[in-house]
């Protein structure tokens, strides 16, 4: 395929060369065959990825030392109210949406039943560079600037394909983003190279615990201090994506005498039992339960010295992420029911001509758009360094209430047909309830 060089170069400078390279090297996008010609240049020759299952033997070790931690710069705000994504954001999210609709959606039914994302799909998604979005360019990252908004747009786009698979794809990115945002030089040097390499480790951010009214600021998982600055971790984490295959976890635990904090826990640390914990929805994320029984952790396991503001930011960004997924899946519902109610006839005309049906569609659209804007605002405040705890809480509240209602309405609009697995609305009913339940696991 011939590439018009000046256009590529122009674009590359504008939108971040590494991201482009990453996309150009992706075998997935090419195979989609969905790009219009103007965009096609972005994707290079197909690359055959042959890999061995490396997870069993992987050790995390710093290949090179860093003098100090590296952070992505943020985009300077323009000060204007604006709902236009940057070109980079638009292109990334369009690519991801194409991937989501072309790859995730068709695989979703089976992955849901199997409680497992197809391995080749995860490889394809890794090729998209999701784990690199939050990583500084100096450390091999994909995007020039730190942006929660970018991550929101990509999460939304993925979840438009399938929420469960989106969670499976995004789980390692939560770990790489956390290390990029808050890791010290050693933590970054030790772990980040694996997330910008060829073989992305299954990794997850484990916050949720199995009890009613779980509050991530009142954890029962505990890290005791032991000799030599070491920690001993005990507790249970629930609905951790890709837990069984997980090689690396960032675990939220109450640090003795301090408060809730994040710890890096390698699966190989031992004394960790893992079992599948399938749930109502997001089943393709292969959720599992982790039990830590006096797991010994080195001093270097603690992230950001346990600073409470880092932990709070982690929780808040996770909530925005789940709201973004709810937006994506909510959009899937809306896009599905509109043609359905126009095609479906009853009593001699399309059911869309009935006010009760039409108004239900209107309300899905209204609440969805309200949720979307609220989620964007929370992320955009994060990008601007403004406080965003309130905005994240509001987005979560909307996601919990309205995403639930959208899922339920989606089934209702299809009636009996909504209740069977021929149509995806039954899965969205289950998945959308996750937005009011999950904490952590994702970051934007």
């Amino acid at each position, binding site marked *: 395929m011939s590439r018009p060089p000046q256009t590529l170069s122009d674009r590359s400078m504008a939108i971040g060369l590494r991201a482009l390279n990453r996309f150009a090297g992706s075998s997935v996008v090419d195979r989609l065959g969905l790009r219009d010609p103007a965009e096609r240049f972005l994707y290079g020759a197909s690359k055959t990825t042959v890999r061995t299952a490396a997870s069993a033997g992987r050790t995390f070790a710093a290949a090179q030392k860093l003098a100090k931690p590296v952070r992505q710069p943020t985009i300077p705000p323009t000060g204007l109210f604006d709902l236009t994504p940057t070109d980079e954001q638009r292109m990334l999210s369009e690519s991801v949406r194409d991937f989501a609709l072309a790859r995730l959606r068709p695989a979703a039914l089976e992955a849901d039943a199997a409680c497992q994302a197809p391995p080749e799909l995860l490889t394809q998604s890794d090729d998209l560079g999701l784990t690199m979005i939050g990583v500084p360019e100096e450390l091999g990252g994909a995007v020039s600037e730190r942006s929660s908004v970018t991550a929101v747009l990509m999460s939304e786009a993925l979840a438009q394909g399938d929420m469960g698979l989106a969670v499976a794809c995004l789980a390692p990115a939560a770990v790489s983003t956390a290390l990029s945002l808050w890791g010290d030089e050693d933590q970054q040097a030790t772990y980040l190279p694996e997330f910008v390499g060829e073989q992305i480790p299954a990794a997850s951010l484990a916050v*949720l*615990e*199995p*009890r*009613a*009214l*779980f509050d991530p600021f009142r954890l029962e998982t505990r890290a005791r201090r032991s000799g030599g600055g070491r920690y001993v971790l005990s507790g249970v984490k*629930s*609905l951790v994506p890709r837990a069984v295959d997980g090689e690396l976890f960032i675990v939220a635990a109450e640090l003795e005498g301090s408060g809730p904090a994040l710890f890096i826990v390698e699966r190989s640390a031992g004394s960790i039992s893992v079992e599948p*914990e*399938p*749930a*109502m*929805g997001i089943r393709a994320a292969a*959720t599992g339960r982790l039990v830590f029984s006096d797991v010994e952790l080195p001093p270097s396991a603690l992230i950001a010295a346990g600073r409470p503001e880092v932990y709070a930011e982690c929780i808040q960004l996770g909530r925005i992420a789940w709201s973004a997924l709810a937006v994506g899946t909510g959009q899937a519902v809306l896009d599905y029911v509109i043609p359905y109610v126009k095609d*479906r*006839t*009853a*009593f001699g005309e399309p*059911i869309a001509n*009935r006010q*009760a*049906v039409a108004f239900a569609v209107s309300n899905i659209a209204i609440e969805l758009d309200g949720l979307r804007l609220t989620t964007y605002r929370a992320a955009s405040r994060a990008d601007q360094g403004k406080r965003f705890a309130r905005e994240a809480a509001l987005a979560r509240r909307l996601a*919990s209430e309205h995403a*639930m209602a959208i899922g*339920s309405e989606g*089934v*209702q609009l299809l*009636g*009996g047909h*909504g*209740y*069977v*697995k*021929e149509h995806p609305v*039954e899965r969205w*009913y*289950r998945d959308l*309830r*996750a937005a*009011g*339940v*999950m904490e952590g696991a994702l970051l934007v």
Partner: protein
Amino acid sequence: MINLEVPKKFAVLVSQAHQMAVEVMRPNSRKYDRAEHTYPKELDMLAALIKGMNESGALGGAGATGATRSGNGTAPSSSPGRSGTRNGSNLANVLSIAEVCWGDVGLLLTMPGQGLGNAAIAAVANEEQMKRFAGKWAAMAITEPEAGSDSAAIRTTAKLEGDEYVLDGEKIFVTSGDRADLIVVWASLDRSQGRAAIKSFVVERNNPGLKLDRLEHKLGIRASDTANFVLSDCRVPRENLLGSPEIEPKQGFAGVMQTFDNTRPLVAAMALGVARACLEETRDRLTEAGVSIDYDAPALSQSAAAAEFITMEADYEAARLLTLQAAWMADNGKPNSLQASMAKAKAGRVGTDIALRCVALCGSVGYGEGELLEKWARDAKILDIFEGTQQIQLLVVARLLLGKSSSELK
């Protein structure tokens, strides 16, 4: 004298149903949720037990069959109390069905011998038919791929050829269709005559003209199979037509529709059972989490979880009493179409809403498969859809309140 407590005379019935739910339904609940399309053999014994109890009168008719014997003007079976009111089989049925569905609604729906077809037969069969079909499990086939709630749009046809009706068409969403002995099929004698020409026909499951197309994979009630059938040149004896073979404008369809008035409170009762299961489980979980619920303190002065719980309980209570009201009216020969649809509408939506909210309150315990809350949230949804969706119920209620025909208020 106004009294809305469960009558003492049904205490044994309710307790037996509860025991059944605890000992048979709950232990098999997750098993058959996972093993969709596997017949729950544990129910055979139970069906025999219910049959025995029904015959002895102990249950007052706990299944779908019993409910339709009275109601809507037909004579109630129980004798009135000194206050002149009757508490009969309709009330007994909603109470026992709610109790069994507290255990598992999917298992109830596939209880041998307790199909919706049995209800239809019980409602409109003549004596000869009653006898001939006695003791058989009958499913009900109404919906078609293109028809949905619009029963007038039924395309399955029935043509009289000699002594046989020949049925042709396609039926979907037939609960227990593959497991039942009989299937009651709605078909039109003459599509040009609309609703009046719709009749129901009893088809033996092993009729060679009745071909199973597939079993649905479903969101919930997975213990209960849902079959799709193709009827092609499906021949049944003319004696298998239920009700009058004549096409009588209005009257004919009313007979067919009457089944719905009788089954709506039963579906409402199912939703109540699921909702109560959710509430009880959630209350236990909240108690573990240190939440106490105080009925004297205003809801808004308590914890958010307590207030949400009280709100759910309140809506549950409203749905429950609307359902008991509809059943009580049927027991007392009062027309209850309005109340039956109000009960179904309220219980259907409240059941789903409560189940979904309980999942969120219980966090990953609610959402995970380790407990049953997530399953109940899946099961509950069908109860706002089948036997007339929420929207159909609101239409029925509105038409009755506003005095509108179905052509005025569509």
